[in-house]
């Protein structure tokens, strides 16, 4: 699942993964979670880079 985010899986791999996910609710959640991790880390970029902008320039109230 993690690897499927890095490369295109073969047809056989996609099928195996889909089958596995159908039977495993934890895995479906895991898949959604690592997707969320990606978004959160993207968001973290703005938090960590933009942290001082808020305290310095409060022009746009």
């Amino acid at each position, binding site marked *: 699942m993690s690897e499927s985010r890095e490369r295109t899986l073969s047809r056989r791999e996609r099928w195996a993964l889909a089958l596995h996910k159908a039977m495993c609710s934890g895995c479906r959640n895991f898949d959604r979670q690592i997707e*969320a991790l990606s978004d959160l*880390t993207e968001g973290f970029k703005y*938090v960590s880079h933009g942290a001082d902008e808020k305290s310095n320039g409060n022009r746009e109230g």
Partner: protein
Amino acid sequence: MTENTVNFSRMAKMSEPINADQPSKPFDDQHYLLALRQQMLKFSNLQIADSALAEDAVQEALMAALKKVDSFSGRAAFKTWVFAILKNKIIDILRQRRRFVEADSLGQTGAEDKLLQDDVFNAGGHWHLVERPQNWTEPQLAMQNQHFWRVFEVCLDHLPPQQAQIFMMREFIGLDTGEICASTGVSISNLHVLLYRARLRLRTCLEKHWFLKGEDSD
């Protein structure tokens, strides 16, 4: 190395007189510089385990930025640019150190990760009941919560250094796997393993310390 930081702002003050009405020039304000340097250090330390090297990268990036300070009208543009320089410095350093990185690639934290693996999965390879990933309700909402980012940062800090480095290169800097392999010397299959381990650790940490805890609790 606070001396250097003081010098930076001193140099900046010499080249540009302080003007209280216009706080937007990047080098006018020592507090701004110090804060920026702290952010850069934090970022750099996440990528480079060696704190002396991490600091070198920050120093060099700031030096390079200082030379072009006049071409920036605002702080946001300047900051984007200084981080872009820092990113390249970091990649240079990682490239020089690729052999060292390769050496501890999967060995050093291997045993520890075996333990994590055993904690999370049972002998049959299934999730232990208590460890089974839950449905995170609206992870996007967490982004608006200051406390969440503190938890997120702590979880990142608890990743083994190499996993943190590679995860951040992939998801934070946004390099593709080919670039990461080229700059770290890690093989593509090891990279996939390291990313998987980092994700497993992070999700476990976030679930335990945030998503199952109730978002209102401090």
